[in-house]
């Protein structure tokens, strides 16, 4: 046992203890590969390295030349081949062209926003209201209000939640030379594009 005095002095490790260390190292190494098996658990279907189209409900790709200012549509991202999965609230995003006063008349990606429609409070689907005096995202359930410019909740229960749960996840957009809109590969992290139903830190 380790408590017994070793005959060759205290600074030297006994054979028995050395053998124990070897056994411990072997055991650790034997089970090391299974740590990575944890990847089995999370759903990685949202991870992609490719750009995807901003596909409007009518099936066309959104274009800066045709999409109206101060207007919004619900888009599905990531789109699945399974119609049932496309109904999933976690795949619905509010695609907004900002009103004029917030820079919506520009013909680049800065005039557009795509936020997760899942309200950060209790996961109802909020939507953008373009009427004068509103021009904000409103949740029908408990009245959380979202700023279309940043995706931050400024009133209602979602605004009372501590960061990152007070800012909506957001997709990065890009406009090509023909004016078509694309969704850049997302980084599902609170410091990146955010986590749907949870939130995002504003950089």
């Amino acid at each position, binding site marked *: 046992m380790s408590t017994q005095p070793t005959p060759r002095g205290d600074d030297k490790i006994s054979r028995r203890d050395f053998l124990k260390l070897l056994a411990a190292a072997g055991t650790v190494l034997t089970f090391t590969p299974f740590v990575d098996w944890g990847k089995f658990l999370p759903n990685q279907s949202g991870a992609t390295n490719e750009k995807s189209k901003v596909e409007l409900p009518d099936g066309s790709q959104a274009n800066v030349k045709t999409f109206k200012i101060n207007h919004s549509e619900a888009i599905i991202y990531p789109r699945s081949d399974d119609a049932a999965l496309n109904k999933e609230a976690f795949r619905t995003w509010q695609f907004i062209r900002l009103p004029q006063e917030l820079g919506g008349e520009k013909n680049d990606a800065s005039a557009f926003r795509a936020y997760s429609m899942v309200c950060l409070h209790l*996961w109802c*689907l909020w939507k953008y209201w373009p009427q004068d005096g509103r021009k904000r995202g409103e949740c*029908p359930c408990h009245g959380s209000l979202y700023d279309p410019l940043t995706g931050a909740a400024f009133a209602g229960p979602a605004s009372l*939640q501590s960061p990152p749960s007070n800012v909506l996840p957001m997709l990065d957009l890009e406009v090509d030379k023909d004016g078509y809109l694309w969704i850049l590969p997302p980084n599902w992290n609170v410091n990146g594009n955010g986590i*749907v139903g949870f939130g995002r830190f504003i950089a």
Partner: protein
Amino acid sequence: MVALLHKENSLVRLFRWIYSGLDRTIFMGLKFTFPTRFVSPLGFLGMLTFVIFIILGITGALLMLWYEPILDRAWDSVENINDSIPYGFHLRNIHYHASNAMVMMAILHMYYQYFSGRYKIRNEILWVTGIIIGVLTILEAFTGYDIIFSERAELAISIAASLTNSIPILGPDMRDAFFGAGFHDFVLRFYAFHVFFLPIALIGLMAVHFPRFLVFDVPMVMAISGAIMITGGVFPVDMGLKFDPNVPPGITVPEWYLTGLYAFLRSQYDKFVTGVAWPGIFIFTLLIIPFIDKYKKFSWKDRPIISAIGITSIAQIVITTYWGFYIDPDRTKSLLERLVIDPIFLYSVMLALVPLSFGFTYLMIKLAKNAEANAKRQPKRTESPITLNEKWIYLVFIALIGFQVYLNIAAYYALLAGMKNISLFIIGIIMLVFAGMFHIYRHGRTIANNPLPPSIQYSDKIKSLQHRKASLDESQDKPKLTSSPENVLSQIKSNGLLSKVFKVASKNKNSFEKMWSKD
């Protein structure tokens, strides 16, 4: 026909053979007791909890044949079970009400062990595993009502997920790993937890949690089953509204065993503190309480501080449970205003309950000790048990069988008429009648085994004594077998090593019998 009852037929022999074969299995360590008279169910609430667990296993397994854990089909499949599948309504209601009964029974079981002081001194492992089983039971019930995917289920899922998210650093990754991303994953994974992960963990823990002495009281088990069915008949569980993310939900509250937690969440204070830390501290306190309890005595009256802590927890649970249900009925206010509970109000009430409960406990202990002292001074009241004689036993039994026939017909007619809840209610009554019948049966058997003195003829008694003497003389002539049970027993007793074990075992047995004689 009558001769058949006396003869030991091959079926009885088969059962006896199986029973003796169990000697070589793990069950030889268990001692089952089937009480021959009424005993208070407080002592075997754990066994009743287990029986309800078995009821849940059977009904749940049957529901699995029709339930579909798919995002857009879950609710519809439950509706199909409830409305269209024959006896689906019955099984769903039994499953639902049994889940509530199991949680309730587990809580009662826990508090009985707590106040009777049986949770400490070599019972710590039983207590700690019991607490873990209790937490898993609540999670099991919780995942169950989530997979219906009604509005209320969605509220529960989103609270569960956001509480997991709120855990510092690891939260979002944990949510992703356990619950997946999106409602499709949530429904499927909660289903997997509900039907496999949690039950298998529960069974494993139960194997550790089971004490060696078990009481199986048939009338009480049947009465509990009947009560579950009657509750299902009187309060059939509704479907709720199918969850649609585009439709604002009505006001929903969780199941009663979670409204206490819900009250804290509704105070809008930090989610992690209210939803994870508070219940975590509560569970941790329960886990360590047998190691804190340093009283040498067991009775709640002799452990004032521990009893007061228990009373405080009950008071806080009752009040927060009610508070979680209460929603301001004033519809002119906004929904949020009606839902939010003022945290200062809530927490000051929780704090005020501590001295109140301590005072209440001391008062109760004083009263109980006073009553004890008074009872000692006064002459003992003579008990007057209800004893039916043989004739009345037969009459009551026949009347109950007649009632059973009537109830069977009534239950079937109710089903034919489409009154499923009435049919479930009547089947519950049938269970209760069986409980009564079994009680009368065992009472009759006790009387038959111990005939009342006046009914014995004097000459018969002499005859039987003579007969016994003759048989005893006969047996003395025979050579004794060396391996008779008595011999083995005396060998064990004389063996120095084994005698200690034997003593411990017999001590346990004594304390166990004492436990029952109290009731």
